Every structure is written in structure tokens, then in C-alpha cells.
């Protein structure tokens, strides 16, 4: 395996959690809800995932538990923002703070426990293709899941009636309601999907990427996922591009650190965050303003 292949492989692994979380949030925002609590749902997925995996000894069970944990957190958010029509920004912040705290409590007994990560699945024949094979077809299941999510969400949003209804709720909830669509139900399901994705992304961090638990291990990845959605103009394929861009920035700085680039490691470590800011500015500049769903972040309370 060449160095370039190795770098590419690490870029893919670094990008995967960002991509999974971003795709989930993209669906949420398309339905008109802004859930800023991705960080909280993600780290709960990481903590619950590894706790369940260690306790039961089954990685699969760990992943399932992580997804459920993300969904539970999302349900909490939905209860507040959809059920009680609270401010979505504030509720998202609350979710992030709450998740960071609760994950610390859940994960405390598992600090320092090492376990075998989830291994790669080599797809027969395809993985033997030179260069492309090991990069694309000898990955862990999460990487395949991320690709499947991008394709699936893209198909769902733009090729199915349910996807059309979901986009309609995000464009104009009053009209969608007037036509008899169940705006709150659609949004609830979208928020749950976002939670499931964030939980899955968290499981990837604690079960594959590191693979162990440390408090606060998401290190802002949930927030970067939010930035990726803006960067992607709410389009799934562009979210994939964005995730790989950020994953690349992370890996490059790691490689630069190990290669002894004469810059403070802290500056290199700040790169992904600075890149996020830069990209947010550039994308707004190039696109000349928001093209997000028109009803994004607005609470909806139907007349009775």
C-alpha cells in the first residue's frame, strides 16, 4: 500500500462520521427544523454505543444502542420544538449541553477500556482492483453505510412523493398544512432520522475510529456537520464533497504534525475549525445569500 493510499484511507475514515451526521441533519433541515444539538446526539451515540458494546460484547448491539440513543435525544428535542413550539436554536443548544454532560456520566465507567474495533469488510473481487480496491472496497461497514445514505437520501428527497412532502413542509408549513399534510408528524420523523444518523456517527467514533471512550471525544464534529449542511446547499451529494473536504483537512494536519512541520501543533489542530469558518464565508459569498428551506427554524402551531 502506498503512502498516498494510506492517506486516502484515513481521510475516508475521518470523513465518514461527519458525512453520516451531516446527511441526517440535512434531512432534518429540509423538513424545516434546525437541530443544533447534533454534537449532543452524536456524543451520546458514542458513549452509549461503546457502553453497550462492552457490556454485551457485541459490536452490532453497540451500534444499535447508539442509534437508539441518538433517536431518544432527538425525541427530546422534538418534544420541545414540535410539541411545545420552543425556540429551535435554544433547544438545540440545550441538547448539545445536555448530551455532553450525560455522555460523561454514561461513559465514566468505561474510561480507558480498550476494545477491538469493528473490522473492514473486503468486498470479493472488487477489493482486488489495484488502488481503487483497497480504498473503496475494503472498508468498514460504516463507510458503505455512509455512501448508501447519500444515495438513499438523494433518491428519497427528489424521487419519492414522501420526499416531496418533506421538502414542502420545509418550504411553507402553512401551505402544507392547508393541503392536509401532517407537518408536525413529518418533522418528527425527520428529526428522529437525524438523531439516528448522529447516533450512528457517534458509534463510529467510539467503536471504529479511536476505538475507546474519552469524555468530549466528538470535539466539535457535530458542529462541523452543521456547517457541512450549509456548505452543501442542502444537497446530499454536495454534503459528501463537504465531508471529505473537512476530513481531508483533519488528516492533513495530523500528517503534517507527524511529519514535523515547523508549526505549533495547536495551530495545526485549529485548522479544521478555521477551515469551517473560511468555508462558511466563502460559500455565502459565492452563493450570495441563503438558499436554505424557506421555513427553516420557524415553529409551526396549527390552528385548532
Amino acid at each position, binding site marked *: 500500500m502506498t503512502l498516498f493510499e494510506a492517506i486516502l484511507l484515513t481521510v475516508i475514515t475521518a470523513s465518514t462520521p461527519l458525512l453520516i451526521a451531516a446527511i441526517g441533519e440535512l434531512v432534518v433541515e429540509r423538513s424545516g427544523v434546525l437541530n443544533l444539538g447534533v454534537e449532543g446526539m452524536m456524543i451520546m451515540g458514542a458513549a452509549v454505543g461503546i457502553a453497550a458494546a462492552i457490556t454485551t460484547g457485541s459490536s452490532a448491539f453497540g451500534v444499535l444502542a447508539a442509534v437508539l440513543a441518538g433517536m431518544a435525544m432527538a425525541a427530546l428535542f422534538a418534544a420541545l420544538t414540535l410539541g411545545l413550539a420552543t425556540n429551535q436554536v435554544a433547544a438545540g443548544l440545550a441538547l448539545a449541553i445536555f448530551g455532553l454532560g450525560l455522555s460523561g456520566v454514561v461513559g465514566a465507567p468505561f474510561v480507558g477500556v480498550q476494545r477491538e474495533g469493528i473490522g473492514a469488510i473486503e468486498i470479493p473481487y472488487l477489493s482486488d482492483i489495484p488502488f481503487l480496491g483497497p480504498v473503496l472496497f475494503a472498508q468498514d461497514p460504516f463507510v458503505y453505510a455512509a455512501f448508501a445514505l447519500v444515495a438513499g437520501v438523494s433518491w428519497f428527497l427528489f424521487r419519492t*412523493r414522501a420526499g*416531496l*412532502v418533506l*421538502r*414542502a413542509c420545509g*418550504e*411553507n408549513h*402553512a*401551505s*402544507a*398544512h*392547508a*393541503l*392536509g*399534510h401532517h407537518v408536525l408528524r413529518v418533522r418528527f420523523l425527520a428529526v428522529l432520522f437525524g438523531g439516528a444518523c448522529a447516533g450512528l456517527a457517534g458509534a463510529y467514533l467510539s467503536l471504529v475510529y479511536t476505538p475507546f471512550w474519552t469524555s468530549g471525544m466528538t470535539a466539535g464534529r457535530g458542529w462541523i456537520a452543521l456547517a457541512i449542511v450549509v456548505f452543501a446547499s442542502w444537497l446530499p451529494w454536495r454534503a459528501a464533497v463537504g465531508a471529505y473536504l473537512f476530513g481531508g483537512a483533519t488528516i492533513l494536519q495530523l500528517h503534517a504534525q507527524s511529519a514535523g512541520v515547523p508549526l505549533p501543533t495547536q495551530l495545526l489542530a485549529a485548522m479544521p475549525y478555521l477551515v469551517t469558518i473560511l468555508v462558511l464565508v466563502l460559500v455565502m459569498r459565492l452563493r450570495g*445569500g441563503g438558499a436554505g428551506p*424557506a421555513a427553516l427554524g420557524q415553529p409551526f402551531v396549527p*390552528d*385548532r
Partner: protein
Amino acid sequence: MTTPLLDATGIVKRFGALLANDHVDLRVMPGEAHALLGENGAGKSTLVKMLYGLLQPEAGHIAWEGRAVHLREPRAARRLGIGMVFQHFSLFDNLTVAENVALALDAAEPVPRIAARLGELSRAYGLPLEPAREVWRLSVGERQRIEIVRCLMQDPRLLILDEPTSVLTPQEAEGLFATLDRIRAEGRAVLYISHKLEEVRRLCEAATILRHGRVVARTDPRAETAASLARMMVGGEVAALRHAAAPPEGPVRLSVRGLSVAPDDPHGVGLREVSLDLRKGEVLGIAGVAGNGQEALFAALSGEVLAPRAEQILLDGEAVGRADINARRRRGAAFVPEERLGHAAAPRLTLSDNALVSGHAASGMVRHGLLDRGRMLGWVDAVTRAFDVRKSPRDPEARALSGGNLQKFVVGREVLRKPGLLVVSQPTWGVDAGAASLIRQALLDLAREGSAVLVISQDLDELLEMADRIAVLFHGTLSPAEPVAGLTREAIGLRMGGAA
């Protein structure tokens, strides 16, 4: 005797303390054109929302062709054959025409097939539509076509139209009537909600009249006069406008010269080479269908958006095009925007705070940056007295007032300052007849006392009643203003549609 198509009896609906529908009965016969008449706030929209399954009645029964039905949701109403064209439309600006139609159909049907069916149907009814266009690119009339066509695609037995002509030019309205005649010729019934009486007399053979949530009359509108229908709606006579004699031609107060402004949002309409003169003592009406640049005109005249060059707007001869809204207020101008809640007033702030919204720049309410709460309250009391604003506490939040009372407050807030120039947009939109007549009289009196008043309105009747001269705004261009005496509805209507 034939079975009624739709028979609603004893319908009750309450919103908090407000009894919106109080044991309402409504019976529509097959193939009938039935009018539902009433003032704003009489409960018409609430009633038809229940017939379409959007709201649930608290008491009462709905029968369809003699069979009791329970309309839990719009889908259930559509399955019976009830279609609805909404007053403010239920369209999605960023989606295509075909997608908009797909969202109103209950069977899952691929969008391309819908587009094909849509093309056929719209040709058959003479309602041309391009399925692949995004809605924000379409005119108001075209948008209404989408609403009608997507109802027709479900082969409805009863078509409900909520105030369909309030956004159309007179000629577009004629086109709509022709379409409705055709729909009726196919044996479909029409429930027509309006407060425009001449239309109802032309179109409908039965009418149910609502007042304060109750049915006050059932009649054949063809046997009534517009005046008798109006009396039933309002429950008495509405004071006619007292016109003082127009003053001799005064000096020009407001002059606009070749003003072009880019639209505020990418989907909006800006202004192109707009010029006008407004004299002391005069009321100038700006007619036009919504979305033809009214927002840009109000923003430019008020100073919410600055003109490209100072000399494009002259106030009493001074170039104010680059002066902000407060500088113009200090020069004696005042403004009333179209949106009561959110633009003219902040819903969750008290009336005294809302007095400050336009009053902080040119009144004694603020001294050295500090608020004088006593004066703010005093202003609220003065407006309340002069404009008969009905409210229970002395200083309630703006959202607690009814539409008519809040409109009286936001108009009164400006009129009481005796401004030299008043620019007002949609002064009586969605308010009851009593409030509307009070507001119109106040604006007219203000002009006759020596101010200059510019009224932007989509209600042509209102302009014909109040204005001395009328100009028409179409696609951001303003026609020359002409004296009302020499104008007919038809002539103005043609300009509103861009034909002349």
C-alpha cells in the same frame, strides 16, 4: 325535493374566548352557485376550513348527499369531491407547478405523469400553465390557475373559492367568472366566498350571510341590491364618506423623479423609472395587483430602502432620497405599512412601546436617549380617544387587539402627528366595515386639512371612493396619475393587467 349536496347544521367553533361559528347552517344544492357573504371576521373562512377538514367543529353535523360524514382531514373532503381554492394560496414558491399539483393529489402519481395530465386539463379549460416552471416566477393570476386546476384534477363535485378575486384585475376576474360558468355547466357546485357584492349578484343564485359568527340571512342575491346585501352583512348603514370640496391646487409636497430600485429579495419586483407628484391637500391613489412593486415603492418612499440618488425623491422641495426613514419623519412625513403585525407593530410589545416604533425620532418620547414612559402612555391614550380603539387594559400587547382596532391604532399613531405627507399602504385591508370607514374618513380629512396623502391599495373600490387622482403600478412601472372623474374601472383594470 332533491337531496342537498352539502348540508351543514348547527356548526359551532370557538377560538379561545371568540365564538367564530355559532350554530351555523349551510345548505348547498347540486350544481348550485352559492355565495357565503360576510364581513372580515364574520366566520366565513372558519366555516369553509371545517368543510374542507382543516378544522374540526365542536358541535354540529355535516351531511354529504344526505349521508352524515366526518371530515377528519382534507384528504377525506377531497375523497368526497370537495375542492378548495385558498385566498392566500397554498403554494410552494420554490417548487415547480407540477410538484405543487402533486402535493394536492392523494394518490401517489409520478410527477411526469401529473405534468402530462396537467397540460391536457389546463388546455381544456383555457387555463394555460407550464408544469416545469417554478411558482415564484408566476404572476398572481397564474398562481390562482394552479390552485383551480389542481382542484379540477380531482374531479370535484363542490368547488370552494375563498375571496378569489381579491388579488385579480377586473379583467382577470372576468376570466375567472367564465371559467366558473364552465365548471358549473359540468354540473359542479360552487361555494363562493366574497364580500364583493356585485360579483355575487352576477354569479350566484343563493347566498348565506354571516355576521359575528351567526347566519343572519339566506337569500337569492339576484333579487337583492348591493345596498340591501351590504345592510345584511354589516347590520346597519355604513356611513358614506363625507367629501369636503377639493382645495385649490396647492404646492407639490412629494415629488419622485425617475426612481429605479432593485427588488429586496430575489423573487420580488423592484421599481422602474417611477415618477409622480403629490400636492398639498390631495389624495393620490396607487392601484395595482399585489406583487407589482408595491413593497418596493413603500420602502423607497419611506426610506427603509434608500434611493440611488438624493434628488430622486423631493420632500417639500428638499432632496431626501438618501435620507433614512427617521430623517424623513423629522421633515414631517409619516408612514403606515401594509402588514399590521410584524411591520407596523411588534406583536409582543405593548401599545406604548409600539407608539415608540415610529415616534422615537420626532416626538418628546425620548430625551437624551432615555425613554419618557409617561409620554408614551399619553400618546396611546390620545390615539385611543381619537380613533375609538377598543381594548380592555390601558396598555395591552399589540397582538391582543383585533385586526380593525390595531389598524386604527397604527393609522392613528401617524395621523395624530398631523404629518405634512402620509404614505399609507393597504389602509383597510382585512378590517371590518366600521373601522374601514373611520380610517378612510380620517385620511381624507387629513388631506383636506392641508396634508398630502398617498394611498397604495389593491382595493380599487376604496381608491375610487377616496382618491383625487389614481396611478397604476404594473411590473414596477407607474402610469401617469389621472383625475378620478375621468376614469372607469375598466380603464384602470386594463392598466393593472399591463394592457394599456
